[in-house]
């Protein structure tokens, strides 16, 4: 035993960090600390993404997901100065419900994940090929960009025969142009909607403040 599979090593590292801090989020009741743990968990998950060869998604996770949590953190900080909202202790019954449901779900998911033999990893014959695949830097940004424009470079490369490629070209490449457009419009709507919801309002305040 003198060989370490470094992919496994880093997988273990990142997954332990991600899971440990996810559990810490659950156990903590200080909102700022929760946000901090969540950030670490999400950052470790982005490490898992990089490890799995999804560079673009990993960077995106860091930029958008973790960046989005920043706003949560800021809200936490803002509310913290308001006294009692830092520590809202969970109730016992919700703990019971949550843990029961959670453990059941975890058992189900674990059973499912471990149920398929092929998912347990590459076979002995595929080992060398796997090492090679992970040794190369993954170039995912351009294919993803093209896919979002509706061009599936990976599918074009998929077949050896020109016939297959023609087939792909003619049969449509199942790109993501339409979802991309929908998401962009959706984001715009969300932007306006959130700004509208959170904007300065005038209203008659009947309660004594």
């Amino acid at each position, binding site marked *: 035993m003198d060989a370490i599979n470094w992919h496994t090593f880093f997988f273990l590292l990142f*997954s332990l960090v991600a899971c440990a801090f996810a559990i810490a989020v659950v156990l903590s009741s200080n909102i700022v600390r929760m946000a901090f743990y*969540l950030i670490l968990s999400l950052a470790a*998950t982005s490490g898992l993404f990089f490890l799995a060869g999804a560079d673009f998604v990993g960077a995106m996770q860091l930029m958008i997901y973790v960046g989005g949590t920043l706003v949560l953190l800021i809200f936490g900080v803002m509310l913290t100065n308001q006294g009692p909202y830092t520590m*809202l*202790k969970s109730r016992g019954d919700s703990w019971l419900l*949550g843990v029961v449901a*959670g453990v059941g779900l*975890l058992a189900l998911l674990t059973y499912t994940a*471990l149920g398929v033999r092929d*998912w347990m990893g590459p076979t002995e014959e595929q080992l060398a090929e796997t090492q090679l695949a992970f040794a190369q830097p993954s170039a995912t940004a351009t294919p993803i960009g093209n896919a979002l424009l509706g061009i599936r470079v990976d599918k074009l490369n998929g077949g050896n025969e020109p016939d297959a490629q023609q087939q792909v070209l003619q049969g449509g490449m199942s790109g993501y142009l339409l979802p991309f457009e929908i998401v962009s419009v959706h984001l715009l709507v969300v932007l306006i909607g959130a700004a509208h919801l959170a904007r300065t309002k005038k209203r008659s305040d009947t309660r004594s403040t």
Partner: protein
Amino acid sequence: MMQFLAQPVGAAHYLLVGAVLFVCGVICMTTKRNALGVLMGIELVLNGANVNFIAFSQPALRADRGLALGLDGQVVAIFVIVLAAAEAAVALAIVLNFYNNHGTVDVDEADELKG
């Protein structure tokens, strides 16, 4: 331990991580009384789902390579991230409004629609 370190990991291991994140998120959503805590739970749930998508997209993580999602998995993960950001924006705006109206972020207080 060393035995495990010598073996290559597979999609199943990623799925386990995803499951832990997902379950943590679910527990977070059910137990937290703080609206921001609930939001964090949602983020964790979506993140756990994303781990699954990424795990399935990588053919080198599994024995049946041809069945890997490939680029599709990554693109879906991207959409999840983007929509999570959008969801967080709207949810925070709602929390803000809730806070303005009720003076608290305790979701247990939001029971006005109860019959």
